[in-house]
């Protein structure tokens, strides 16, 4: 069964460094998303992406964040200058229509 994959599973970085989180959505899906979950809290929407454009973004998704689909398979989330409060689990999701399928997540730890 096709699934969303994410790499790395765990990333440790120092405050102020840039990180790129990678996702490979399900191959026939057209809609892509990033969510994050700070430990012990609810899952929060960051951004949605369709047809090589951002469709919607939350107030969390400020100028430090960017997304890209550099080729036909990868979907990336870049954080330009990480802050301590960016420490969280980051989930990529994709959908063909309304059902979003999530990857296993990347745990980002900012020290």
């Amino acid at each position, binding site marked *: 069964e096709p699934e969303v994959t994410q790499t790395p599973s765990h990333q440790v970085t120092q405050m102020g460094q840039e990180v790129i989180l990678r996702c490979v959505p399900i191959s026939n899906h057209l809609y892509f998303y990033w969510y994050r979950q700070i430990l012990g*809290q609810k899952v929060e929407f960051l951004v949605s992406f369709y047809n090589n454009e951002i469709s919607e973004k939350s107030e969390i998704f400020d100028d430090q964040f960017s997304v890209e689909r550099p080729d036909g398979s990868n979907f990336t989330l870049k954080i330009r200058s990480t802050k301590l409060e960016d420490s969280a689990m980051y989930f990529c999701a994709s959908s063909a229509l*309304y059902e979003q399928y999530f990857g296993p997540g990347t745990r980002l730890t900012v020290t």
Partner: protein
Amino acid sequence: AQTVTQSQPEMSVQEAETVTLSCTYDTSESNYYLFWYKQPPSRQMILVIRQEAYKQQNATENRFSVNFQKAAKSFSLKISDSQLGDTAMYFCAFMKLDTGANSKLTFGKGITLSVRP
């Protein structure tokens, strides 16, 4: 804005018994979907079940079923014949449809379900 409320932080059930997880939501939208996602200790988010707001019939997927009360804005999940593998965090989620298929999910805080052997 939409809000999703899961007021029970934790529940416990004996293996093979039935448990119901509660969820309420608030919206002025008329066209939306509701979902339940499961997050086991591995932390992967797994889609359990989906309900379209325009459908009166409650969705069912094997041992999982929902009780959707649109007027009351209530969307509970019933798990029958609970299994040890059902131990997980369960999130209720809302999706409005006015922006089409690329709509975001709004999640509740989740409920931790423990299935006792």
